[in-house]
């Protein structure tokens, strides 16, 4: 090998052009997050998965390996199935309302001109509230005797005197979902607003010159270009609806008619002390949440590629 061939190579290695030094630096910089993810996400997930295959119950000696027994029992458990049914209802109501409402709110905020930041700050407020606080506020709103909602409806001449919102299962499921939607809708609005603001104004200008109406511009320009943002918003809405706990717990406690699956996990683990049974259920919740979210994620990926 000639000297001229060796020298540039050494020089480039020193500068990191061949990638070794860059790769090392990259690894070093990525190490903290990798370690954090392994310690705080992957290890607990793996540990939960492993424990769910054992009988972990402080009231019984030992932790024998029982394979998929818990998973088989969960499939046959009528109370767990009822909680699943409630959760899927929550997911549908929350995702539909948050997405439709979030897009609507984002479009309005986008038109707000110089008042946009103030409107945005007001819209974001419910999202800034902790779930428990939000639920307590709504508990007062729904109060049969002196709640704001019944007061307004009675003032409007409707027969809602001392109406108990949680005594009808269908109404209760919707009422509880609405509280969650109230808190999470602003996040969808912010994500969609960011997507809206990335659309070049020239496109609308060109459409206007071509004589396109406002609805046409919305369906042919706005919607296709915010698809990615909407898909991300729907993913977070879905995950949040699967993780629904605070609002349901505060508003209706462990009531079976409105009990979401995470409340069931809590009851199995902390009330009944069947830790591994609760773990197996939480593993199923994770997979269900991932499976539904995957639909949106794949959609985002496809949209991003097209973009």
């Amino acid at each position, binding site marked *: 090998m000639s000297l001229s061939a060796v020298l540039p190579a050494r020089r480039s290695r020193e500068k990191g052009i061949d990638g070794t030094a860059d790769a090392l630096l990259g690894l070093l910089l990525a190490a903290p997050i990798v370690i954090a993810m392994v310690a705080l996400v992957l290890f607990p997930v793996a540990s939960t998965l492993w424990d769910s295959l054992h009988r972990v119950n402080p009231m*019984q000696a030992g932790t024998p390996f029982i394979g998929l027994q818990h998973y088989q029992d969960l499939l046959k458990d009528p109370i767990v199935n009822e909680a699943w049914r409630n959760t899927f209802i929550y997911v549908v109501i929350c995702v539909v309302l948050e997405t439709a409402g979030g897009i609507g709110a984002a479009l309005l905020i986008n038109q707000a001109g110089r008042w946009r930041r103030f409107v945005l700050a007001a819209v974001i407020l419910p999202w800034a509230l902790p779930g428990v606080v939000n639920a307590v506020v709504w508990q007062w709103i729904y109060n049969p005797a002196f709640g704001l909602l019944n007061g307004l409806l009675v003032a409007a001449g409707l027969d809602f005197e001392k109406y*108990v919102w949680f*005594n009808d299962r269908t109404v209760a499921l919707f009422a509880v979902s609405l509280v969650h939607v109230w808190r999470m809708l602003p996040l969808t609005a912010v994500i969609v607003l960011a997507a809206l603001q990335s659309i070049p104004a020239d496109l609308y200008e060109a459409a206007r010159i071509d004589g396109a109406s406002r609805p046409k511009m919305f369906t042919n320009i706005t919607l296709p270009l915010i698809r990615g943002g909407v898909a991300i918003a729907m993913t977070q809405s879905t995950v949040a609806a699967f993780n629904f706990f605070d609002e349901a717990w505060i508003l209706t406690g462990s*009531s*079976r*008619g409105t009990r979401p699956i995470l409340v069931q996990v809590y009851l199995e683990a*902390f*009330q009944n*002390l069947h830790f591994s049974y609760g773990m197996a259920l939480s593993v199923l919740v994770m997979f269900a949440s991932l499976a539904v979210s995957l639909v949106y994620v794949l959609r985002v990926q496809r949209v991003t590629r097209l973009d």
Partner: protein
Amino acid sequence: MNKLLRTTVALAALALAMPALADDAKPLAGQSITVLLPSGQSPNIASDFEKETGIKVDLQMLSWDDIRPKLITGLIAGTPPADVTEFDWSWTGQFGAAGWYEDLTPLIDAESIKDMPTASIFTVDGKLLGVPYANDFRILIANKDHLAKAGITKMPTTIDELIADAKLIKEKGIAEYPLGVPLSPSEGTSTLWYLMTFAFGGDLFDKDWKPLFTSPDSGGYKALQFYVDMLKAGLIDPASTGLKDSDVHQMFMDGKVTFDLGVGPGWVGAFEDKTKSKIAGSTTLGLVPTESGKTVSYGLPEALGIPAASEKKEAALAFVKWMTSKDEQIKLAAEQGLLATRTSAFEELNKQGKILDGDVVIEQAGTVGPLFKQGTPTWYPQFSSAVNNAINQAAKGEISVADAMKSIADETAKAQQQ
């Protein structure tokens, strides 16, 4: 001179010995412990105990519902959540089976245990896991102003009388919903149904833990039917499906209900406190009304336990003994309205006239038995959850009384197998 010298030396020796004598009186002085109790405890507990023993107390208070999850997360991890903790009667089965608490049998003298009849509720396989510090049993509490306005001169002793009185009070417009009954899916709903089951002459289980509430002529079935009928008659607020027992007590304090059914004498202090209650001065106590007229009740005491993982067991034990002593029980009764767990303290308080309607309380106390004769089972939380959920659903009209009873029996059978 020699005399003076000897006196000086003697005084100096005495002065030097004083701290040592004080140390002997307070052998654990300087140690510190954490104590986890439900909210509402007297603020003087920590300072009074430190004054007497020299042991510092970090008193942590949480709402009753939040204590259990905190205890369990700590206990399962082998980390003591505190050196002394709340120990509710309903946890005895689970915590006993898990072996999370210290056996206090050899550490508490037999005389004290004899003086505390409810100590047996905290005993599992001969091991005393908690020393009772707050007594609780069910009794009937009413608003005597409401009764007087309706012309009712005596407390009801039978269920029929209770219904007749409630109807009269409603008809006269004194209270829209005279009967205060929690119907939300919460513990208070279960505990009242147990009482009503006894009041209708029934029991929960036989000696082999077989349910005794599924037949229409059983006490449990009749108790739930009573709720449904009273809801239909407009004597119980339909919004009770969202009320816990503490919410019902608040309604009683607001003067909205006449009879508080799911309550113990320990609440009288709050009901008679003018800063908390709008009906202070109007509380009256009666025996639990029953179908037959022969009153019944059962105990729901709270105890102090020492987690087995605690590293300061000696100081923790000193606290448990101090807080459950006769003197402290009398003091706590005066300061925070706690019902004494020692018979001797209870009698002393009644002698001093410090218990409202003391004779009624003592008569009811004489009828108090354990909820479960065989001891609290490990599956109690599942049973209680099944009970309050079924009651809640039946009260909302989602399921029939028969289905509710069957649902409780089915879930109990499942819990017993796990």
